[in-house]
């Protein structure tokens, strides 16, 4: 397979396959949860479920003092790489162009040097997170193969994207093909791993908050 053929494959059949697995897989996972439903709560409402749910989405996204003190590193590094991923994926001009072409929606991009710097910071944060996981005996004990896999498929598009942008080593078509392929790996892994939390986390937070809200307590 030549470079051009590889590039054509990742843009064509490769991307089609990855999209099917990603979208279909996530749709199944989310709907399976939603269809489960809940028993009607027969007790009289003592507060607003919706307000409680929305409030919890926010409060659970901000670490409380205790958690912050106990695991400062996890919180800080976690925030950095999550924001970093948000910026590099959604605010980089060529990515927005792609989204515009597929979904027909677009928004302004950040200047390329900003995204470039963010990529480096995000990669560093992810490496630090892995080192922390390996060094901390409890974390290491709790880690499964999947945790390392998820880390790998997350950092890979960042690294390949950085290399492709700076055109290090190989020819541009090969670099861009490798980058697209690494994203396809991420898409394929998404529905089957903890990565799916990107879609379920706010639903879960809302649900916890809504139960408490209905009972008139803070979650």
């Amino acid at each position, binding site marked *: 397979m*030549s*470079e*051009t*053929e590889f*590039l*054509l494959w990742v*843009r*064509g059949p490769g*991307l*089609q396959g990855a*999209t*099917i697995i*990603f*979208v*279909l*897989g*996530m*749709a*199944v*996972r*989310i*709907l*399976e*949860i*939603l*269809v*489960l*439903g809940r028993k009607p709560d027969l007790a009289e409402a003592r507060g607003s479920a919706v307000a409680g749910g929305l409030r919890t989405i926010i409060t659970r996204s901000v670490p409380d003092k205790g958690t912050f003190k106990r695991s400062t590193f996890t919180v800080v590094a976690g925030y950095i790489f999550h924001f970093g991923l948000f910026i590099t994926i959604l605010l980089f*001009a*060529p990515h927005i*162009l*792609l989204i515009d*072409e*597929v*979904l*027909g929606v677009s928004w302004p991009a950040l200047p*390329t040097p900003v995204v470039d710097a963010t990529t480096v910071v995000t990669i560093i944060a992810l490496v630090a997170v892995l080192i922390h996981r390996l060094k901390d005996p409890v974390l290491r004990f709790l880690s499964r193969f999947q945790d390392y896999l998820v880390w790998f498929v997350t950092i890979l598009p960042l690294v390949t994207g950085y290399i492709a942008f700076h055109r290090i080593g190989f*020819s*541009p*078509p090969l670099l*861009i093909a490798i980058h*697209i392929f690494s994203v396809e790996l991420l898409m394929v892994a998404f529905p089957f791993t903890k990565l799916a939390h990107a879609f379920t986390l706010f639903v879960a937070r809302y649900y916890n908050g809504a139960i408490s809200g209905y009972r008139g307590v803070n979650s």
Partner: protein
Amino acid sequence: MSNDKTLGEILRKQGISRRGFLKFCAATASMMALPPSMVPAIAAALEKARRPSVIWLSFQECTGCTESLTRSHSPTVEGLIFDAISLDYHHTLQAASGTAAEAAREAAMEENYGKYILVVDGSIPTANPGYSTIAGISNKDMLMDTAMGAAAIISVGTCAAFGGIPHAKPNPTGAVAVSDLIKDKPIINVPGCPPIPVVITGVLAHFLTFGAIPELDALGRPVAFYGKSIHDRCYRRPFYDKGLFAETFDDEGAKKGWCLYKLGCKGPTTYNACATTKWNEGTSFPIESGHPCLGCSEPDFWDGGGFYKAISTPTGDIGRTATYAIGAGAAAGIALGAMNRAKHSRAEKAHEKVTIDDLDKEK
């Protein structure tokens, strides 16, 4: 077919001065990326070279490759070289036709067996031999027959080199490249739609000078001409590096000559010499006239996902795929959810309450 004269003699007879000849040798050297110190060696070799016999076969093609070669306006390096070879068979250019033409081909083959150069343009249909014939001979038969006595084969144009446009999906004629059929001869691919004239003659000059085929890349193309991508030598490259792109063919960026990447330029994946040798006697090349590179010297350029689509965007309709996938996923998710609910209610029904008495019994 006077193959006894040397190239030097022929050129002198045509009134080419020693100075002009050396200039040509220097141009050849620089074209082939050889050091200037090689010029005397090239001159000496060319001076003594015998006029080689060339048989040119045209199969499923549009004659654009031949046009490209013969449309030079003033005597050029290409012209000189073509005067210096003995083009013994070329059914577009020769006066004879039919049986007489075939006789000329056979005579040239016999006389120069094992020594002639075979040039091919056009692809070869394999689905049915009747799709393309010359004097009643199928393209494949003629190629196999003529290739046998050739010293080397030059596949001129993307059709002969890679199958080209006839080979584009769905390839109704089962078109293939020369290299798909012939495995036991040195083949030089000179792709392009059409190839740059200087590149065709440069390859011939190399063969004349060194009596061997030039260094080839993985796709059988001479590295001297196809070693660098269009993108690497493109004068719009500074704009690409700064991220300044023309978004449409008539916007501010297009007028300012910004990079054509977003308009589908295939320069980054295309290896050819257009950006340096240019076309029409060095006038310009497609990107210079405002059109993105189509990638015509690459295999399957016709099926490369659209001429006006940037090379990093999806080739298919991802939006539609995603919509279907959501639909299928939703259906599957709801079905699975319903199954889970059914299981849950079955479990609830089967549930038996445990009483204090039951627990007492277990003691």
